[in-house]
């Protein structure tokens, strides 16, 4: 606990130091932070990797800390009375001595007379990583934690709007009061039930709010799309232009191919695996449009999006972006 307090003081001190950074250094500092944080994922992805044993921490827990000497695969296997495939052993020998020991123990455990240890099994024991990979989970956890701290901003924003509604008795202030009460009740019940006894009143409250209200609200809002899809289809699918017509025809074919009532229109066509005419059945036409004709179009769109995202990332990462926001005096 003491160290936590010291850490907090250090953090506050750093914040204080930051407030004294002179104006001309502020922008370079932001550029540096952006670049370095981007470097983590970029370097982790591009840096050459080496083979290590998968789930090392679990294996250490199971078999104890290994020594530094490389194990003798053949001898160990003989001792255990089990056969290891030479190809597979070759794969495991690429590992560092420590990792190889753990891998060998794991290999001998999974090997049974019916299930010999082959290259596929060896592949499962080995994974590729570089010096940053072990930090990967930490960094994404920290990013999650940092973002979680921002929830206060959101809730503050939501509450301030609605508290003002209540204070000024604007029309609909009752709804604002409902909203704020709901925030508190839900947060209280959902956190509280983690800490209270099973079957307590907090759990009942959480059950009412979550299962009784929230889940139903979710399901209802999701299902309301069915209504909107009908009105959108009715309005949009008109033979107005070539494009609109194509849209309509493709949608109609897929729709009809999806339900028995539509499929019935072409049920008279043969349906054998080798019947050429069977391809003209509505369900097959629908699937063809969906899988073959749409696929290249969406793929081409995706390629463009990938390049666009890459270019935007590079501009932001390397602080190449210009414009008022990025050129503002700080």
């Amino acid at each position, binding site marked *: 606990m003491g160290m936590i307090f010291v850490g907090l003081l250090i953090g506050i001190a750093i914040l204080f130091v930051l407030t004294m950074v002179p104006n001309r250094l502020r922008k370079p500092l932001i550029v540096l932070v952006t670049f370095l944080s981007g470097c983590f994922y970029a370097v982790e992805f591009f840096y050459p990797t080496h083979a290590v044993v998968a789930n090392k921490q679990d294996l250490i827990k199971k078999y104890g800390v290994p020594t530094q000497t490389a194990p003798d695969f053949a001898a160990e296997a003989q001792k255990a009375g089990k056969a290891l495939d030479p190809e597979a052993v070759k794969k495991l020998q690429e590992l560092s001595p420590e990792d190889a020991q753990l891998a060998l123990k794991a290999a001998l455990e999974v090997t049974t007379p019916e299930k010999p240890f082959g290259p596929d099994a060896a592949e499962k024991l080995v994974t590729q990583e570089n010096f940053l990979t072990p930090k990967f989970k930490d960094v994404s956890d920290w990013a999650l934690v940092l973002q979680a701290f921002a929830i206060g901003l959101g809730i503050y924003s939501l509450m301030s709007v609605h508290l003002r509604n209540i204070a000024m008795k604007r029309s609909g202030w009752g709804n604002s009061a409902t909203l704020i009460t709901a925030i508190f009740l839900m947060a209280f019940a959902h956190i509280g039930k983690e800490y209270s006894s099973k079957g307590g009143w907090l759990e009942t409250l959480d059950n009412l709010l979550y299962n009784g209200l929230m*889940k139903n609200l979710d399901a209802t809002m999701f299902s309301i799309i069915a209504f909107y899809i*009908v009105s959108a289809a009715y309005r949009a699918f*008109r033979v107005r232009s070539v494009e609109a017509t194509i849209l*309509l025809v493709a949608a109609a074919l897929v*729709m009809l191919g999806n339900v*028995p009532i539509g499929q019935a229109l072409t049920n008279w066509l043969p349906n054998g695996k080798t019947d050429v005419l069977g391809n003209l059945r509505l369900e097959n036409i629908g699937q063809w449009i969906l899988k073959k004709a749409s696929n290249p179009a969406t793929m081409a769109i995706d390629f463009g999006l990938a390049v666009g995202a890459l270019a935007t990332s590079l501009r932001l990462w390397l602080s190449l972006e210009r414009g008022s926001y990025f050129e503002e005096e700080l």
Partner: protein
Amino acid sequence: MNILNNLDRRMLYLLLAIVIAIPLLAPAVTKPLPKPAITGFTQSYYDTIEKVAADPGAKNKIVIVSCNFAAGTLAENLSQCEATVRHLMMRKLKFAVFGFSDPQGRELGQQVVDKLAKEYDYQYGRDYVNWGYRPAGAAVALLKTAVNDLPGAMGKDIKGMAISQVACMQGIKGVNDVSLICEFAASATLPVWIQFYQRAGKSPIPTLYGPTSVMATEAVNYVESGQLQGMLIGLKGASEYELLLQKEGFASSASASLSLSHLLIVVLIVLGNIGMFVERKQRAAAEGGR
């Protein structure tokens, strides 16, 4: 005539609600609608239950009906569950309702059973049991215990009675007394059964799967590798299954709702286009006459 070009959207919403509700309220209306073709997935699903029922040893075993869904995917999963429970009841198999993904699952499962129990003279305790809901986080540990000590792992049923005391659970010790697993899922809960229970006993337990249509694509691999003996693909699969059972229930009426709603949209599109053409003609005539 211009009315066709500009129908009030509330009218459309009402029509949709009616078209969907009618088959659910009055299933008889849907009789003349075309029936779906039966796929291999559904056929093998049906055959598996028949095979289990034909096995004389199955009388002393239990079927697990695993309801891992909530109201959100009710149309797809509940219809699969209902058809399956009906088949089990037709063949007089003992079963247990269970769920670990959502507390609503076991309630929805119970609803299905309540609906069908009278018809097939099924009684709680004697012919089936509801183990209730266990949190997902504990599912793996629970199933691992249930390999050797099923009543002990499950503890009490939804009525608060120790499971070892329930009549239909007499003689059910562990994994070797389970004749079939039927999993109805709205999320990736199947691997828990596959990894920790299906092959934990003397011989692999036949496993059947009812996923939502979106999830079915991924599950095809399991069928091909023989880890699943059959699968119902969403609502469509459930309605095919009811055809095989020759007993049309929720799935058939829901599937009819689906068909009718698609038909409604097609009709509306056609009407809208007719309205548009008529209006164009009228306008052209008006301009021509000027």
